[in-house]
């Protein structure tokens, strides 16, 4: 049955319409979880607030369980679900650049729009920087192309590399996530910070 758009159960336009509503819901959840504050986001790097880790890992685990169960019930064909292809070098370099920007700016791209939507000036400045980065990369693409496309791995799955079934790896991920939540809560107590 699913995914809906690749199987042409819904049209491309309906797909965009659904994406629009899901996007609004996503922004609303981000805002109400406090993600529009750069202090909250930076907290993950200093240990006083791990809500970023908790929200995103809970979301990932929920989505993973949902997809695995829907696949088991025959509701979705996972081979048709888009997976970003892996370019190892650019994933590492991009991760470092994004992480540094995250610490310095206190936002990631999604949350900066969330912050700008409720009138945060720092979020708007962050978005300005984001566009400078995007256009800067696009206009100098020739310089980076070799680095950008280096070490292409296709669409690998960690479960395949380890020889585990998807379900077993899913259970493993759940245990890892819960372990991280426990550590995060310990850190929040260990490095408390009032008034942020």
């Amino acid at each position: 049955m699913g995914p809906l758009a690749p199987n042409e159960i819904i049209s491309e336009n309906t797909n965009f319409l659904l994406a629009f509503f899901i996007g609004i819901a996503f922004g609303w959840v981000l805002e109400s979880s406090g993600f529009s504050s750069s202090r909250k986001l930076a907290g993950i790097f200093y240990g006083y607030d791990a809500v970023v880790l908790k929200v995103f890992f809970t979301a990932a685990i929920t989505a993973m369980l949902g997809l695995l169960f829907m696949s088991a019930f025959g509701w979705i064909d996972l081979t048709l679900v888009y997976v970003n292809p892996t370019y190892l070098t650019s994933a590492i370099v991009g991760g470092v650049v994004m992480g540094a920007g995250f610490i310095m700016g206190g936002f990631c791209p999604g949350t900066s729009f969330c912050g700008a939507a409720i009138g945060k000036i720092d979020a708007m400045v962050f978005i300005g920087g984001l566009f400078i980065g995007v256009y800067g990369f696009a206009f100098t693409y020739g310089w980076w192309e070799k680095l950008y496309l280096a070490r292409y791995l296709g669409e690998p799955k960690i479960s395949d590399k380890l020889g585990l079934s998807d379900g077993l790896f899913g259970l493993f991920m759940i245990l890892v996530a819960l372990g991280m939540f426990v550590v995060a809560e310990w850190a929040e107590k260990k490095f408390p910070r009032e008034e942020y």
Partner: protein
Amino acid sequence: MKQLKLLALIIIPLGIIIAAMPADKVNHSRLTPGELLQEAGSGVQFISPDIVADMLVRKDPSLRLIDVRTPEEFETYSLPGSINVPLSNLLSEEFSDILNQDAYTNVFYSNGSVYANQAWMITRQLGYENNFVLEGGLNYWFGNILSPESPSQTSPDEEFARYDFRKSAAAALGGGGVVSTDAASPSPKAVKPPVTAKSKKKPSGGC
């Protein structure tokens, strides 16, 4: 901490359930009986004998003919290059690599098309792709491909073209010796294009 315990209480059992499921069940969705019925009824599994004959003459390497009749029948007569997978042994371990693959176009055949169709249904239900059924089976093959009947004078050009093709195919495939006597045999069906699974668009874009 209370919330964390609640979360753990929910997601750990779900994780254990999904980990305990057989891997092929998680990865490959099976068809529901309704979907299978719809597919079987629409006839997408059939591949026309003319196309198979053409592939055989051209020695198309992607074609793999699978005889689902008994080994005795297979010994007596089989299509050139075909292999024998008796219907009763269809699920045996030694044939799973043959039936579950994406390199060849597997074409099941039997005397009619009933047994071949059964084989297709079972493999389709298992989620295997690239398996087809020779339309009309060997009976139609003998009567129409190996000993084609010349069309009447008033037939459209395409029937003459098909007759010429079948005659040359029959010569190449070692037929032509059988004399057709029954003038009331069914008129040849229109040539169907090869049936392939409906191509699905690969989505693009990420977050």
